[in-house]
């Protein structure tokens, strides 16, 4: 419960964090349509140029030619004294910026791109002289060349605000996001180590990789302020982001499928992968669309899995379902970027929660198995100090000593041998079959003295090197002795057969005797059979089979151990 409430707390924190990111003050400017013209004339920078014949868009500018763009801008509110406005641009190309005809900044070397190395940044901030930002109309003119993406002209990202704020707000946001990314990096490393410690736990590995991909996604997305990126590298960055998204979109439903198993999950995941590939390949150049579609299919498929989990009453499934619905809700109310990061963090938190539930379960199961193991050891010990065995044996022993002391001594020797053998196997989980057979033989010797019957033991095909859990044949033998009456010649015969093929080892234990009919009509599963089953489970998990049934000659037990 404590864990669950803390995960809710984290959810709330992320919600607050997301909402604080989406805050923005009222804009101080208004931009109008940008117009373009190919050519290079210094006068085109002028504020009052007559530009009716400029074009609304340019399709292609080959060979890195220089072209100009002009964007009319209204300043709605003049800046305060000593607080100049800044201009943040996101534009493809290397360019010079003119504000009302005045050159206020330079980003690379327009016109010389083909000859000089890439220079300048995709996101850059310039300061605008204060005397040029009074309320009213202004013109921003750019002198550009776009050598690397000649068909990518237009639609620049543009923001005017307090210069100082423009420089710092992204840094602040980025510092948060780097801390955030760091947390997922640590989680990724931690769970990778956990996986290396237990290589069967694929869930831990999937979670670790998901965290690492999410770390990569955050870093690639927010790295732009700290590391300058030339516009020629922009598509590579988007490719990286989309690929990371692809990985995450695949891993999350895979993770949920393993947490909440459902029939034919491999087929379902196969279909999902095909859908992802399809989304990834169509309209690949529209990165935002691809990312959005992948996210939506991720949410949809995960929702189906979680809904099935809820239907099957799987632990934690309801929380996952609610989180996914919350993600869809968030997606509707905030921008793609913010919903992406909030949504993923929520989902990853959920995965972490499920993982912790699982780790807890495993710990309990492990503790249980320790207890079980100890219990089985005790059970084995108890078998031979339980009053029914001990007191009856002692009673017979006294009688033998009173009647024929020499035989009594032999009886004591057999008894000592059985205890000695039991001592040797008592704390082991597997012993050689030869040891177990020795135990059975000496037990028969004791029972001969007690019951005065002829017990015979036969074996066939035994591979003495094979190992089995201690005491299981011994238990079958005891059951056989207890429930049988001798045949006409005062004899009870036991026979152990061993067969092995590619799939399994098979022990057949036969009792040749007259079987006592149980007064209660049906034979209930006694402690003996329970002991055998527990021992088999301890050593072979569910890779075994035990049948115990009457046969025409007496009783037949078959133990199959699958490979």
């Amino acid at each position, binding site marked *: 419960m404590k864990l669950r409430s803390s995960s809710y707390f984290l959810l709330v924190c992320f919600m607050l964090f997301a909402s604080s990111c989406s805050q923005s003050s009222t804009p101080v400017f208004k931009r109008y349509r940008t117009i373009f013209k190919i050519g290079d004339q210094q006068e085109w920078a002028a504020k009052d140029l007559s530009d009716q014949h400029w074009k609304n868009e340019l399709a292609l500018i080959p060979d890195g030619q220089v072209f100009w763009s002009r964007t009319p801008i209204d300043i709605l509110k003049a800046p305060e004294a000593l607080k100049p406005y800044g201009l943040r641009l996101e534009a493809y190309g290397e360019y010079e910026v003119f504000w009302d005809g005045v050159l206020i900044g330079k980003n690379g070397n327009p016109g010389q791109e083909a000859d000089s190395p890439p220079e300048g940044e995709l996101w850059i901030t310039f300061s605008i002289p204060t005397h040029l930002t009074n309320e009213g109309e202004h013109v921003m003119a750019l002198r550009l060349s776009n050598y690397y993406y000649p068909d990518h002209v237009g639609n620049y990202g543009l923001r005017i605000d307090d210069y100082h704020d423009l420089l710092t707000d992204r840094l602040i946001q980025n510092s948060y996001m780097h801390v955030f990314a760091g947390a997922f990096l640590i989680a990724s490393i931690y769970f990778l180590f956990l996986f290396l410690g237990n290589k069967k736990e694929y869930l831990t590995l999937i979670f670790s990789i998901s965290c690492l991909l999410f770390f990569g996604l955050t870093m690639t997305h927010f790295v732009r302020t700290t590391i300058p990126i030339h516009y020629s590298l922009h598509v590579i960055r988007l490719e990286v982001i989309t690929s990371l998204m692809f990985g995450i979109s695949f891993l999350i439903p895979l993770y949920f499928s393993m947490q909440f198993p459902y029939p034919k999950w491999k087929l379902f995941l196969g279909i999902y992968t095909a859908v992802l590939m399809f989304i990834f390949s169509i309209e690949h150049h529209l990165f935002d669309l691809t990312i959005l579609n992948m996210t939506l299919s991720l949410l949809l498929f995960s929702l189906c899995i979680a809904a099935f989990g809820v239907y099957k009453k799987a632990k934690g499934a309801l929380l996952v379902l609610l989180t996914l619905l919350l993600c869809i809700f968030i997606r509707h109310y905030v921008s793609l970027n913010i919903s992406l990061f909030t949504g993923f963090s929520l989902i990853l938190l959920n995965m972490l929660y499920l993982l912790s539930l699982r780790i807890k379960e495993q710990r309990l199961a492990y503790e249980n198995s320790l207890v079980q193991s100890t219990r089985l050891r005790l059970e084995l010990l108890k078998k031979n100090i339980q*009053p029914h065995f001990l*007191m*009856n044996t*002692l009673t017979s*022993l006294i*009688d033998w000593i009173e009647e024929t002391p020499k035989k009594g001594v032999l009886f004591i020797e057999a008894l000592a041998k059985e205890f000695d053998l039991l001592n040797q196997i008592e704390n082991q989980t597997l012993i050689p079959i030869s040891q177990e057979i020795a135990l059975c033989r000496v037990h028969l010797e004791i029972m001969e003295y*007690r019951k005065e019957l002829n017990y015979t033991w036969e074996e066939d095909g035994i591979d003495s090197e094979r190992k089995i859990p201690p005491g299981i044949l011994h238990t079958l033998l005891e*059951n056989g002795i207890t*429930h049988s009456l001798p045949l006409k010649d005062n004899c009870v015969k036991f026979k152990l057969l061993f067969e092995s093929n590619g799939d399994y080892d098979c022990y057949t234990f036969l009792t040749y005797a007259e079987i006592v009919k149980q*007064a209660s009509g049906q034979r209930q599963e006694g402690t003996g059979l329970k002991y055998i089953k527990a021992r088999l489970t301890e050593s072979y998990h569910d890779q075994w089979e035990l049948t115990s049934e009457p046969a025409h000659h007496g009783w037949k037990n078959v133990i199959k151990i699958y490979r």
Partner: protein
Amino acid sequence: MNILIVEDELRIAKRIERMTRDIFGSTLQSLKHINTLHEALHHIENSELDLVLLDLNLNGDNGFELLTKAVSGSFHTIVISAYKNQAITAFEHGVLDFVPKPFNQNRLAQAFKRATAKEKVENSKIRFLGIKKKGRMQLVPIEDIIYIKGAGVYTELFLTDGRKELHDKSLEKLEQLLSYSFERMHKSYLVKMSEIREINVSSGSKYMAELKNGESIPIGRTKYKDIKAKWL
């Protein structure tokens, strides 16, 4: 004495048999050994027995099944078992004695003495009397019994809820088992002392015990002094 030994270990059965013969000598009329529960039940139903020597674990069957049937019979039951921890349960069901294994002749003789001697035994542990009802066994709690009336070789149990049940044991045998709270007031009555409200002398020197439920039970002339002293 007609004795049945129910024991699935031949060596032990032989030992019991040998010792029983030694102890009873010529007074022994018959002695039989059976090693399965099923046969034992069959034998008990079809024979006149005085004493059953019973092992509680028979070829994996729980001897208690036999115990409930055995203690309802007209004979006494002595349990000979390795399970000492079941002694109390056995006594609660109304066995005469519990001989733990391993045992010797002295201990067996002591148990037999209880069965043969007419004197009372101290068994304050008995909590039930088993009765046969429509082929099934039913356990009647001792605290529900007000008094017991002898009826030939059987007895009638008079219960607090007004019911009357038939029991196979004779009044003498029940007296042996129930001596700690019941008193023999008359040759055909065994009464729980705590149920007596008053002791009256009616005309013709007849002594009567008036019970809490309003019934009156006669008190034997020879018993009166004794009863009066105990009741006071």
